């Protein structure tokens, strides 16, 4: 009997079941699908007229125009293709962070016991749910985990069997060590052969300069980019009223600090970070979603899908 996957919430799946995942850019897929393509094809959507040149398929001649004007025009239609979707999931130690308000302070060395509310768990949930949806509508799904040691790339493919492979891999991910997301994105940009949708699920505790370069690389390869930024309100606001010992989830030296004293500086640094991030995502036209621990994932994903469905497709 198949082991139930804790990160796949039936409520989320149920809510997403009637929605579709749309690409905001033209995709180059391997088979016909529901996404627009930069190629001309045989869909019902008229694209343009062009003059007949010898060698064109005569079946595409618009005979009515020839009959009226004695000129030969070829009638072209848009092509529909499937989507290559690849998830980049951050599996660094900081993704083990669990909001104090939900799971209490973690310092027992056992992140698994609180995996129900950690950022990594939510990342798995997002990736798993969207992968299920994509496979359901015939799109190809791949997975890349940003981890220096246990990172594994699964190239995008279609089919329920491949979905199982992706979900199995998601299940195996454990958060530990430093984050090497920018390097992983560079690799991904090179490995995905044609245009696709790259979904990044991370807390983005990385050097923004490096992140910016890696995102530019992806955009240069014409990929559509989505970022699910998993960061907790506590991490943004540092709402502690007493000196504390902060234990680095990525394995660095612990730090004794009085949040009250450093609060202003902390807010200034976080503010600068968010401004810089905003500039990057705006400039690269990235679909950015910041998700906190207090937000309902079903709602977040539902609104994400609805927004994409409503956006204009560009070829």
């Amino acid at each position: 009997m198949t082991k139930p996957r804790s990160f796949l919430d039936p409520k989320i799946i149920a809510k997403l079941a009637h929605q579709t995942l749309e690409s905001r850019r033209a995709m180059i897929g391997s088979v016909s699908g529901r996404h627009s393509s930069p190629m001309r094809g045989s869909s019902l959507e008229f694209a343009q007229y062009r003059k007949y040149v010898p060698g064109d398929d005569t079946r595409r001649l618009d005979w009515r125009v020839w009959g009226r004007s004695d000129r030969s025009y070829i009638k072209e239609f848009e092509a529909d293709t499937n989507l290559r979707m690849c998830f980049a999931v951050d599996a660094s130690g900081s993704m083990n962070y669990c909001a104090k308000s939900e799971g209490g302070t973690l310092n027992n060395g056992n992140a698994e016991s609180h995996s129900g509310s950690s950022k990594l768990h939510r990342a798995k949930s997002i990736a798993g749910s969207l992968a299920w949806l994509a496979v359901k509508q015939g799109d190809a799904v791949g997975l890349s985990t940003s981890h220096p040691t246990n990172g594994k790339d699964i190239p995008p493919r279609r089919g329920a069997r491949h979905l199982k492979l992706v979900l199995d891999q998601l299940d195996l991910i454990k958060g530990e060590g430093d984050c090497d997301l920018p390097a992983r994105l560079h690799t991904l940009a090179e490995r995905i052969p044609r245009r696709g949708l790259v979904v990044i699920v991370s807390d983005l505790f990385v050097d923004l300069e490096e992140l910016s370069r890696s995102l530019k690389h992806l955009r240069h390869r014409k990929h559509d980019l989505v970022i699910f930024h998993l960061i907790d309100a506590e991490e943004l606001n540092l709402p502690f009223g007493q000196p504390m010992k902060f234990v680095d989830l990525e394995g660095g030296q612990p730090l004794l600090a009085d949040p009250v004293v450093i609060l202003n500086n902390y807010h200034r640094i976080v503010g600068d970070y968010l401004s810089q991030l905003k500039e990057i995502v705006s400039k690269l036209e990235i679909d950015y979603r910041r998700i906190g621990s207090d937000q309902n994932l079903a709602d977040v994903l539902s609104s994400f899908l609805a927004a994409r469905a409503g956006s204009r497709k560009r070829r």
Partner: protein
Amino acid sequence: MMFLQPWILFGLPLVLLPIAIHLLNQRRHRPIDWGAMHFLRQATRMHQGAARIRYWLILLLRLLAVACVLFFMSRPLATGWLSLVGNSASRVIVVLDRSPSMEMTDTLNGLSKRASAIAKLDAMFEEKGNRSERILFVSPDQPPVIVPSNVKLADLAETQSTDVSAKIPELVSQALRYIQAEGLGPTEVWCCSDLQVNDWDTQSGLWPAIRETLAELPFVRLTLLSYAERDQFNAAVRVQRTALKRTDRSSELLLDFSVRQTSGNLVSRVLPVTIQIGESRVVVELELSGREVVRNGFVVPIDSSIESGAGTIELPSDANAADNNFHFAFSRPSTMRSLIVSDDEKVSTVLQIMTKTSMSKQQQVECELASTQKLASLKLDDVGLLIWQATLPEGAIAEQIKQFVATGGVVLFLPPSAEFNAKGNFAMFGMRWSDWSDVDSQDYSIQRWRRDSDLLRNAESGEILPVDELQVRRVCAVDGIDATKLASFSNGASFLCKAATDVGAVYFCSTLPTVECSTLADNGVVLYAMIQRALVEGSSSAGGVHAVVAGSVVPADLEAWERVDLGDKTIVAADRPHHAAAYRSGKRWLAINRSAGEDDPTAVDEKTLQSLVAGGSTRILNDQIESNSGLTREVWRWFAFAAVFALLAEAFLTLPNKIGTSKAFAMGSGPR
């Protein structure tokens, strides 16, 4: 600083409590797993400088608060200068200046400098619980007084005022010798004085010895409690000379007196000066302007039947009552005797002529001549004037001359003749003769001499002595300090000078009345006036009238004397030599007064003072009479205030005043 409950100070290690708590607290920091370490490290780094200062400041304030609480509970005693002076010694020696200048009184609290110092010392001893052994030094002639623990210094007869100048070097030296002789341990020496130069005698040879002793006794701390202020108006009166003169119908007393301002700020005002002789009283208005006003030959008419007597001259009340009176005695001149000691016949002949020729026919004059060749001792009984024209004496004869001067006698020293006397190198009254030299009369004309008083003063008719007509051919210069030039040559060298003495008079003339040396003999008038005036001055004391300085006579000499002045202060027999008063014994009269130096307001400056007592553990405390601050007082309040301040400052620094000052970040679809 000392403590009334010193055992509490054993808790001083508790000062380290905040550090221990801090270290423990660091272990008790609540741990939290944290992902956004990048932000945290940056924020901590940005805040590190200010936070570190604030952190150390908070820790320091906590240490301070605990220390202050401990100090405040141990009830510290400090001096009035906030514990600048330690007071841990078990023995305290008090050297007290009881001179008249210490009677300068504050108009508000009515306390004199002496009384203020004693009151503050008493208060200090009382606050210390009278646990210290107290030893009092007030006079070099008296043994130290060991003060019983239940007796206040103010109640002791030994701490009351006198008219004797304090001999501070002798007193301090005596106190240090006592410490050495008794082998005392840690000792506080408190020297209370107004730093008057007359009392401190900065030229005294004892100071080097005092410095050496202080350096040898590191456990002795010398504290100078000084009252050098002289802001309030004060004047002192002094009689220089008395002479009883009989006219055809009545008698009159001629008085030379001076009034001197001793306050720091000079003012001009009219003072009523009262002269009291017996029952009769004369008041004269004296306009005081400048430092000193001298009135010579003031005539006081008296009964013609009075042959001798005593009186008092008095100033109105001012800041110091101790120098407002001056007693004097007078008598009708009897036979005026003089003694000439000379080996030079030419000189002695001239001097004899000048001496034997009396200014008044009624006055009998006798003159005796002696040679140094056969001189074993001097017969100075009833002698008024001694003229010494020979090598300056030494040994017994020198002592005899000093005693003669101390009883009011007058000595005129003339230089020894080169052909009769060896020059010698002896000094008398701080003066010594130099070598003879031939001089040009033009360069050595006398242009400046003192015409208002002393031997070369103008005649009563106002006529000027022809001092400027004198011609000097040979000069034997006189060397010395502290001499007053009565006449000087045009090049500044002294012709006639007067050595500094409290009573009597000592004159040095730098030439001889011979043809080879000067025209003193040919001119005659000047030399005659000089000798006759010196004779009259000296004979006033020789004729049964004595004027002495307080402290210079022994009590036994005054037992049979009857006090005749109208002073209201009762003086016990043993203290008579130390207090100004007028006495009578048969036909003899005695006036005891403060020394002339007491009227000199000059105080030892702090630099000189520090150099005098350098080498040991010495502190100088400048106090004021009107100051109400005690020498010691409980200062626990200051420590309580300091503790409260430290705690408040600590609370302020640890206030979480920065919470909520920054805007919180919200979640959402886009970066905010």
